[in-house]
């Protein structure tokens, strides 16, 4: 047989073989490779290249080597799932570089990082000031992760003691002027609802590039024609304001009336409504 036919045949077979082999290997982000992962991938690539070009005279030698380098990482991955000991041997252990705000110079030396490299890594984690760092750890992939001191962390609504309404993911219901039935049924709305919403906003379906419905059922539209201004829906703010107005009315009725029974009823209702307003605030205003 012609040698070029052999190469063609081998290459096609090896192409699919490596394809399935890498499918079965662990999914990893290329930048998250441990050195060992890197070595096994490179060797597999080399063996495949050598076999398919016919540089290895006996193809079975090549296939044996490929099987060893392909299967052992898979076996090790499975056994490291079962045993922490094997996991530590393969992947190494993460090393703490900063503890309680103090840099651990010994550990830096063990990972062979200079002070300059360490500062550079911290900066890439957006912590320019070493004084802000409470804890830093070098992962087995070589990434450095940083935890800031409690008073330097970004403020969350929890820190401020503000309750915020939970938000589930929004659903796209219109794309390129077409209604997406799947998105609509996911949120339990109908085409009829969508067409009334569009009519209320005074927008034609053909003019909508993207339409998205958030968890509370508000429709946000982006139009092809950016000159058209869509009124922003302020239904929630309006509702909040009208409930507040009712509450103020009840208070003033309580002051005006001379009937003791009515006065106490107004006061009690005003109080209850006040509680309702407090509960609704995070949902209607944010």
């Amino acid at each position, binding site marked *: 047989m012609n040698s070029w036919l052999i190469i063609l045949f081998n290459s096609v077979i090896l192409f699919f073989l490596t394809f399935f082999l890498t499918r079965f290997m662990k999914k990893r982000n290329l930048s998250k490779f441990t050195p060992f992962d890197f070595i096994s991938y490179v060797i597999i690539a080399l063996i495949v290249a050598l076999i398919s070009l016919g540089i290895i005279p006996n193809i079975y030698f090549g296939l044996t080597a490929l099987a060893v380098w392909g299967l052992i990482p898979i076996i090790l991955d499975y056994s490291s799932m079962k045993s922490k000991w094997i996991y530590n041997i393969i992947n190494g252990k993460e090393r703490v570089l900063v503890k309680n705000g103090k840099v651990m110079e010994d550990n830096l030396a063990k990972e062979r990082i200079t002070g300059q490299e360490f500062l550079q890594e911290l900066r890439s984690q957006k912590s320019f000031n070493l004084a802000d760092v409470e804890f830093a750890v070098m992962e087995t992939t070589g990434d450095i992760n940083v935890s800031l001191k409690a008073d330097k962390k970004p403020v969350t609504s929890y820190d401020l003691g503000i309750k915020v*309404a939970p938000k589930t993911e929004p659903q796209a219901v219109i794309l390129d002027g077409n209604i997406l039935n799947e998105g609509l049924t996911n949120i339990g709305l109908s085409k009829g609802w969508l067409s009334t919403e569009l009519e209320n906003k005074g927008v034609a379906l053909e003019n909508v590039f993207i339409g998205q419905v958030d968890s509370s*059922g508000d429709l946000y539209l982006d139009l092809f024609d950016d000159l058209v201004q869509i009124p922003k829906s302020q*239904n929630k703010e309006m509702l909040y304001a009208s409930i507040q107005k009712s509450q103020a009315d009840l208070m003033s009725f309580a002051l005006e009336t001379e009937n003791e029974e009515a006065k106490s009823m107004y006061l009690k*209702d005003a109080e209850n409504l006040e509680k309702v307003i407090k509960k609704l605030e995070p949902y209607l205003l944010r």
Partner: protein
Amino acid sequence: MTVVSKVKQTLSTLKGSEATLRLYSLQERDKEARAIYTEAFKEISKIKINLEKRVGSIEFQEPQYKGN
């Protein structure tokens, strides 16, 4: 504006708020938010009933303002 017409106006505002909240409680997908809306419209409907009774008693006491 007479007392009874003021109370009636507040009553209608409350009715509107109650209806909107009821709509939100049906539209909302998040369970927690839905519970809050439901609770709010139930509370408001109680207040609404109290106000309706009050309107009735004012109209009984001062029948000359009835219908305003």
